[in-house]
């Protein structure tokens, strides 16, 4: 222990050990005083801007404690006149720039701004600003609503997205009274590289970032007599609900949720853990096939839609390595619609599938066009855990007092392996359990504790048929970036990699109730493994209804029909929407458009030089004025980069050394044929 982390601080007269804490704030909190904060999160870097955590340090005056290292012998007073005055003044200033109405705000009763205004006794705002400054709310996407009018500039979302998720969608812009937190160029989140993980909303202390709700649509479907409304509950939801209502276990919480959902009017209540079991069987089979062929390894998991979108945007070269398995949510949607339509005779369009998910990205996933049949989505609406809590509240049902009920069959039956999907390491462990157990054995299922827990990177290895299989479990996309870059550089080697966007896995999803910090996640994780322990089976391959499904419909894992229903594909995605760079401004309508991609993947493979060479070749040939050159950003064909589009058609692999040849063999003939038409 270094000197600084030893010794004592006197907090309001109480001698408090430093105990290794990195900042004074933690020491003060340990002493029993809950100093308020907006911009401090133990897992993010220290920003020190909100001035809520200030205290008077003897000899130094009033200081923010979150950015002050504790020192032995420090004497601190948290509630001196000056500290209280400054704290309240800072809060009043925030409120002055804040346009919102608590009654209609999504964060009502969970808002730190509201809570602290109450706690610090701010009764009126002295510097109210005119309503004229109200700016538009971003509702461009399925997952997150961004209302800048409620932003207090704490920067929590900025650091979350940059430091933990490694993306940097949001940042500060402008300065002084014009300072704001925004996406690039103020674009909607659907036009930038946001993966909809919702982690920003999980740390935002106000209603500036919230989960987009579709609760009204779900109520409407329930009230519609013609609809059969089917609901699936994701593994991580039970832990969050247990926590929220003070129910001792996730298993009991689940029993009460079933009772509540039936009362509310859902026709069938199922468990996403069932399709998690199915995912395990499909994904393990796929993996063993790849190992046998030595192809597309490492295999990456594909359950997390935020990770999938991240890969599509930032690692298009690895899309072949993603498991082709749909996520459990989407497997459920396509299976259940088929099953209810065929076995129960309900027309597909009258089946309304609702998911209850810990996740905001699942809302986006359900809307991906490939997950629908004739414009009818496999999953109609995705509710977050937060919305489920609201729904229960709206219905007046007292959840904690309800009796337990069990799920409908067959899609309500799961093994423990399906439940642990809710925590980071769960998918990996489910696959390991299956691989390490001989098929059909009802004996002991091995456990893999090394892949459990909230650490951002965990590793394990097992021996299969005398061959060592190396495995990594990653959560947090900054960690994923790190691991991918190392794989790319050949510094590490894995055979299978589980990636979840949210730290700790889905238990910490962006749709989970607040607080959603690491402490809450730790407790939820424990509940998930307790849930696993009380199931009768622990190996996905032992799930009798999964077996039956193969016998009656799916034939065998990775069969043709399984592929049709349970597998999918991915495509490169651009990171930002925008206009190309115009390089030939005069009269473009009479010219043949030639667009060279300078998006990241193409740029890294020399597309800039391709562009330069093409322009040069056009000049040499004296046809520069017949071509309308543009530098553009991503045709979403990154795998074949660098890409060039001539007269609407995209050509791949136009590396600089092939540019001249490409000009002669592709561009020139287009010019000539156009000239012929004109003549």
């Amino acid at each position, binding site marked *: 222990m270094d000197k600084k982390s030893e010794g004592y601080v006197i907090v309001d007269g109480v001698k408090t050990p430093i105990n290794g804490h990195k900042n004074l704030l933690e020491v003060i909190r340990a002493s029993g005083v809950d100093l308020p904060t907006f911009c401090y999160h133990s897992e993010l870097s220290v920003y020190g801007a909100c001035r809520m955590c200030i205290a008077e340090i003897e000899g130094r005056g009033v200081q923010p404690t979150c950015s002050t290292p504790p020192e032995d012998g420090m004497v601190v007073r948290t509630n001196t006149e000056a500290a209280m005055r400054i704290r309240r003044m800072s809060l009043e200033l925030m409120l002055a720039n804040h346009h919102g109405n608590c009654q209609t705000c999504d964060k009502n009763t969970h808002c730190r701004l509201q809570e602290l205004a109450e706690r610090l006794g701010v009764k009126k705002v002295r510097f109210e600003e005119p309503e004229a400054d109200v700016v538009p709310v971003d509702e461009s996407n399925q997952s997150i609503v961004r209302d800048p009018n409620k932003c207090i500039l704490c920067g929590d979302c900025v650091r979350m997205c*940059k430091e933990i998720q490694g*993306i*940097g*969608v*949001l*940042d*500060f*812009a*402008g*300065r002084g009274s014009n300072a704001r937190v*925004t*996406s*690039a*160029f103020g674009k909607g989140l659907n036009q*930038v*590289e946001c993966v909809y993980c919702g982690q920003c909303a999980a740390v935002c202390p106000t209603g500036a970032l919230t989960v987009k709700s579709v609760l009204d649509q779900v109520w409407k479907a329930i009230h519609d007599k013609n609809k059969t409304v089917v609901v699936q509950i994701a593994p991580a939801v039970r832990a969050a609900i247990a926590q929220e209502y003070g129910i001792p276990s996730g298993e009991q919480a689940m029993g009460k949720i079933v009772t509540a959902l039936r009362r509310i009017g859902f026709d069938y209540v199922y468990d996403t853990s069932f399709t998690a079991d199915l995912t395990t069987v499909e994904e393990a089979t796929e993996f063993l096939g790849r190992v046998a062929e030595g192809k597309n390894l490492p295999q990456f998991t594909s359950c997390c839609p935020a990770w999938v979108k991240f890969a599509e945007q930032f690692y298009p070269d690895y899309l072949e390595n993603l498991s082709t398995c749909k996520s459990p949510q989407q497997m459920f949607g396509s299976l259940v619609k088929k099953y209810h339509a065929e076995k129960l005779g309900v027309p597909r369009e009258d089946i309304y599938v609702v998911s209850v998910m810990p996740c905001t990205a699942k809302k986006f996933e359900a809307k991906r066009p490939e997950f629908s049949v004739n414009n009818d989505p496999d999953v109609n609406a995705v509710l977050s855990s937060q919305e489920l809590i609201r729904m229960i509240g709206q219905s007046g049902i007292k959840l904690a007092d309800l009796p337990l009920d069990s799920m409908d069959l067959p899609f309500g039956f799961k093994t423990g392996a399906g439940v642990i999907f809710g925590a980071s390491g769960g998918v990996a462990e489910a696959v390991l359990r299956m691989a390490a157990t001989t098929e059909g054995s009802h004996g002991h299922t091995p456990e893999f504790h090394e892949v459990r827990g909230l650490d951002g990177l965990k590793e394990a290895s097992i021996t299969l048929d005398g061959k060592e299989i190396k495995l990594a479990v990653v959560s947090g996309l900054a960690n994923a970036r790190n691991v991918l870059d190392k794989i790319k550089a050949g510094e590490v080697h894995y055979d299978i990699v589980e990636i979840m966007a949210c730290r700790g896995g889905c238990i910490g999803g962006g749709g989970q109730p607040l607080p959603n910090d690491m402490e809450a996640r730790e407790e939820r994780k424990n509940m998930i493994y307790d849930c696993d322990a009380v199931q009768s089976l622990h190996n996905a391959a032992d799930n009798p209804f999964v077996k039956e499904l193969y016998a009656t419909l799916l034939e065998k894992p990775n069969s043709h029909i399984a592929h049709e229903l349970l597998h999918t594909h991915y495509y490169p995605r651009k*990171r*930002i929407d*925008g*206009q*190309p*760079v*115009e*390089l*030939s*401004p*005069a*009269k473009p309508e009479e010219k043949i458009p030639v667009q060279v991609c*300078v*998006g*990241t993947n193409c*740029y890294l493979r020399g597309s*800039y030089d391709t562009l*330069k060479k093409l*322009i040069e070749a056009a*000049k040499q040939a004296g046809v*520069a*004025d017949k071509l309308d*050159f543009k*530098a553009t*950003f991503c045709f979403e064909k990154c795998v074949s980069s660098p890409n060039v589009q001539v007269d609407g058609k995209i050509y791949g692999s136009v590396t600089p050394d092939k540019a001249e040849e490409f000009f002669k063999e592709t561009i020139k003939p287009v010019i000539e044929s156009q000239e012929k038409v004109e003549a």
Partner: protein
Amino acid sequence: MAQATAASEKESRASRRFEKIQAIVEQYGAAESALIPILQKVQEEYRYLPEEILTFVATALNLPPATVYGVATFYAQFSLEPKGKYIVRVCDGTACHVRKNQTLISTVKEWLGLKEGQSTTEDMRYTLEIVSCIGACALAPAVVINGKVHGQMTPEKVTKALEELEAAEKAEDK
């Protein structure tokens, strides 16, 4: 034929500008620390920071576009709106304000034909900027036209300065 030459002249100007940006990126190295000098050069070339060029810079430097946008909006020297060839800055610091700079602002606006909320003329030749103290308080009210400070301005004097600029440009064209 003369027309064709003029067109291809314009052509190469557009691609030459873009080439310069890439050359600057290569010169400074694709590092975050080079962002500000790179943006300065971009602004020199384009007279403002076009969105698509900022996206290109973000790509080349491997930075999130929001970071580049953040820096571009933080410094007063950068503009994300296209600017005219000539910049007319009317000082609105305290000293100039009390010496009736408002009549100067309205004179310039009227002379340039700027509508409410518009700061650049449609032909992209002039941009009017209202700035805070430029450090020439002794000469208040002050106007900076094309980088040159004009002190103790009156509506007549500012009009005359603009007319002279116009005449000089015409002479140059010939």
